[in-house]
C-alpha cells in the first residue's frame, strides 16, 4: 500500500487505463470484502486501517470530482470510513463488493451534505397552494395566462420583488428577509398578498 500511495498522482477527470492496471497489481477486490468481514466479526483495527488506506483517498477523490471542496471531501471520506466501521455487520458481499458498498455510502453522505446546506427546513404551509389545471377550472389556460401576466405586471413593487426573489433566488424566505432588511413576517405577508391578488385576478379562488 505504501508503494501504491507513493505512486498517487493528482486525480484526473476520468479513470485512465494505468489506474486499472495498478489496481490489478495491488489488492484483489475480494480481499477488501474479506477485510470488511474481519471488521464486522472481530472489530479488527488492522483490517480497518488497510481498508482506510485503500478507500479513504479514493472516496476523497470521488467526492472532489462531484464538486465537493477538498476539505469537505476529506471530512466526508472519513465519515464514510467511520460508517464502514459501524455498519460492517450489514455488509453482504453476496450483494455487492466492498467498493460498491463504499460508493453508495459516500454518495449518500454527499447527498445529505448538499441537502443540509441547500435546503432550509420546509414547512408545507409556506408553499403557495398550486392550482392544478382541471376540468372544473372553467377557464382556458390562454385566458388565465393573460390575466396572470397582467396581474403580475401590476403588482405593487414590494410584492413583486418578494415574488421574484421567492421563485428565482432559491433562497429561503429568512435569507431574503435578512438581505432586504425586513422582518420575515413582512416577506411572508407580502407573498400572501401577492398570491391572493394573482389568484383573484384569475378568478381562481380562494
Amino acid at each position, binding site marked *: 500500500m505504501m508503494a501504491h*500511495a507513493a505512486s*498517487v*498522482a*493528482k486525480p*484526473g477527470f476520468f*479513470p*485512465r487505463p494505468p489506474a486499472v492496471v495498478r*489496481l490489478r497489481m495491488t489488492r484483489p477486490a475480494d480481499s477488501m470484502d474479506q477485510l470488511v468481514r474481519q471488521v464486522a466479526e472481530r472489530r479488527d483495527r488492522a483490517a*480497518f486501517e488497510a481498508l*482506510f*488506506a485503500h*478507500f*479513504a*483517498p*479514493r472516496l*476523497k*477523490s*470521488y467526492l*472532489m*470530482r*462531484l464538486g465537493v471542496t477538498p476539505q469537505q471531501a*476529506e471530512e466526508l471520506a*472519513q465519515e464514510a*470510513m*467511520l460508517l464502514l466501521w459501524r455498519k460492517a455487520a450489514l455488509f453482504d458481499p453476496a*450483494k*455487492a*463488493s466492498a*467498493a*460498491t*458498498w*463504499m*460508493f*453508495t455510502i*459516500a454518495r449518500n453522505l*454527499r*447527498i445529505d451534505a448538499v441537502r443540509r446546506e441547500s*435546503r432550509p427546513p*420546509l414547512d*408545507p404551509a409556506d*408553499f403557495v*397552494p*398550486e*392550482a*392544478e*389545471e*382541471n*376540468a*372544473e377550472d372553467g377557464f382556458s*389556460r390562454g385566458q*388565465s395566462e393573460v390575466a*396572470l*401576466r397582467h396581474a*403580475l*405586471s401590476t403588482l405593487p413593487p414590494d410584492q413583486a420583488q418578494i415574488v*421574484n426573489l421567492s*421563485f*428565482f433566488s*432559491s433562497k429561503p424566505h429568512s435569507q431574503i428577509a435578512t438581505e432586504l432588511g425586513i422582518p420575515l413576517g413582512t416577506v411572508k405577508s407580502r407573498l400572501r398578498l401577492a398570491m391572493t391578488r*394573482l389568484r383573484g385576478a384569475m378568478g381562481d379562488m380562494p
Partner: protein
Amino acid sequence: MTVRHHPEEDLLLAHAAGALDESMALIVATHLCFCAQCRATVALAEKVGGTLLDVIAPAPLAPDALARTLAQLDAPMPEQARPVSNDNTPLPLRRFLGRDLSQVGWRKMGPKLAYVPLTRRGGVSMRLLRGAPGTDVGRHGHKGMEYTLVLAGGFTDVTGSYGPGDFQTASPDLRHNPIADGDDSDCINLAVTTAPLRFESVVQKIVGKLFGF
C-alpha cells in the same frame, strides 16, 4: 401485482450516481420500493460506481486523517431512527413526509381532487395528488417533464393504464387526460414536474409554476 411502467434507464442511472435532485431522487426511490426490476438496474449501476471508485486516482488525505478517524471508532454510535410505517407507506416517502401517507393533510381542489404541495425548488415541484375513482383530471399538456408514480389506486390515459408502483414519464409533447379508475380506492400519485428556469422569461415561468407545470 406487477409493475408495468418504469422510469427510463437514464433516470435510474442518475439515481444510482446520486445526480438527481431531491424530488426526483424521492420519486425514483419510492418506485424502487415497488419494483424489483428497477432495483436490479440501480444495483447494477451502483456496481459500476463501485468499480469506478476502485480505479479512481486516489487523492491523499491529511497525514493525521487516519489517526483522527481511529480516535472516533469507539465513540458511541448515534441513534438513527429507521422510519416505520403503519400503513405500508414506502419508506423513502415516509422519511420525507415525516409521517404516513394516511396522516398527511390534503387540500381540496374540487369535490373529487385533493393535493399536498411537497417541494418547489429550482423549477421543480413535487406534490401528492389524490383523485376519487372516476375523477377526470382534465386534458392538459406540459411545459416541462411530468413524472407520476402511482402509490394507490390507478389511472388510465391515452398511454395506458397505471396501477400502484407504475411510473409515468410525460414529456412536453404529451397531451393527456388521466382518469382515476381504481376500483374502490382513491388514486394517490406522487408527481414531479420540471420547468427549467429562464430568467429572461419571468412571467411565463411564474405562470407555469403557479399551475404546477
